[in-house]
């Protein structure tokens, strides 16, 4: 089962990197939020994999991932709400247009 752990961790890492890439480089704000969710889910894979196949496997990893899901949901909810607000006021969800400050 040792190999299983490795594959899961690799999957997690790949997802995490995809998410990070998306969060940092995508222009559409919704995709940015989605990418963040992807990162969080990558972490969940890690937790669950460790909880099952880790050197000291036990349940707390799964519990942790439950909490993560909840928190990710709350974060997504707030993020979306803010995005809607932004869209209402600015009429765009393009991240490139978010440069009101800094001038």
């Amino acid at each position: 089962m040792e190999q299983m752990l490795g594959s899961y961790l690799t999957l997690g890492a790949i997802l995490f990197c995809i998410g990070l890439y998306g969060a940092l480089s995508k222009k559409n704000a919704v995709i940015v939020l989605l990418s963040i969710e992807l990162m969080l889910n990558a972490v969940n894979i890690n937790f669950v994999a460790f909880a099952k196949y880790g050197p000291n496997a036990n349940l707390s990893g799964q519990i942790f991932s439950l909490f993560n899901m909840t928190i990710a949901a709350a974060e997504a909810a707030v993020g979306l709400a803010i995005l809607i607000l932004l869209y209402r006021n600015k009429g765009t969800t393009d991240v490139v247009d978010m440069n009101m400050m800094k001038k």
Partner: protein
Amino acid sequence: MRLQASDLTYLGPELTLIIAAVLISLIDLLMPGRMSRKWLGWLTLGALFVSGIFTVMSILSLGGNEPKEAIILLGQSYRIDDFAHLFKLLFLSGTVLIVLMSMGSIRQEGIRHEGEYYYLYLPAVLGAFVMASSGDLITLFVGLELLSITSYILVAMKKSDKRSNEAAFKYVVMGGIASAFILYGMSFLYGMTGSTSLAELSVHLQKLDESFHAMIYLSFFLMLAGFGVKIAAAPFHAWSPDVYQGAPTPVTAFLAVISKGAAFAMLFRIVYNAYLGVGYRGVEEPMISDDLFLSLLILAAVAMIVGNTMALRQHNSKRLMAYSGIANAGYLLVPLAVQFQGLHYSGVSELIYYLVAYGLMNIGMLAVIMLMSQSVGHGELRGFSGLYYRAPWTAVATLVLILSLAGLPITAGFFGKLYILLGALHTKTYWLAVIMIVTSVISYFYYFGIARQMFMRSNSERQDVARNGYLQTVIWFCAAATVLLGLFPQWIIGWISDIFQLSFDFFTNR
């Protein structure tokens, strides 16, 4: 293992906050729409106050225990110790000032959800409490997110203001990425040890063999990246100027002081509980933990340099404060990054003292900025010009705060930096001390730039300074406290060392 009814008394501060948050939100909902919401602000203050009383009581009751021992609740996931108490008191008093600021700004900032503007601070502070007090990764993370998510909303409080929305969105994105990084790091920590409890974690980590060393580094650096964002330390600072500028000013103060402080409390717990002395590789080889602490030192240095040099180019006062916050994050990292060794065991009191000082001067300064932008209608630095002619007393108070920020005597900011420096020199980290001092001198440029505007420029903005009792109270309190704590730092530090003992309060596990 389970929570006993008697343990609830120890949770008094937390329970007060949560009950108050629920009650006040219900009151706000059921209150007729036309009634003034101002007294919700007073209720919030009351709740913070009661929570403070509980915290003090808890400190007293801990002091009574002989031999002194931390109270550990809920299967090691929650610690009631004096480390947490000190931070809690800090958060509470900071929030009191910030709520006062909010009450003085509700109309000017154009916030429609007045009730929320007050009581959302309560769950945010609760999150900070949990971060300071928990002994388990899960609880730590939940606390962190409670704080973060509430502050996302607070940042977006100016609903119709595009800047506020934009700032909130940036904050959500960066906060989310940071959380993901922290979690990713935690997942490796958990994976190596099979435990989420900080105490067990450290035991397991010490025993790990060579093959896990890479993972130790990985987990630490991932978490460091995440926390770097949360404390706004360069190079993870990109969000902070925009967010600070866009957020309502009291919220800016909240982010700058409470959020940052809580992240430091959490970082302190993780670094010292889990990573101290980890990774022994042989007698001659440096331990892994030495490398980790070195990386913290480097982060501190980079934050100081970047924060202070970037601040030189700012024209907007809140952006200036953001960069100053980045630099201060660097200073605050120093007591953390300088390991306990030899005779140096005072990292905690250095951190807390400087946090107190930093909180006072930052909140005070932001209150000044708010007062100024209420008077002149914008937040640019030139708004300060000729302040001395318009409001000499406010100008003097501001000067005190500026001196403190710049780290000149006789202010809390000066002594705080000095204390941190002494610690750094103590452990012979000379290069960092030099960077710290040199960057402080660089900071004179921009801090005294404000002073020049106030005292040496003529009055280009003709408006009178707005009268605002709340803000003026905050400004004067901060200025006075800054001077007092600068004159008599032992009041705070002595008190800290009276109630706090590192080995009993921070490291013991029942």
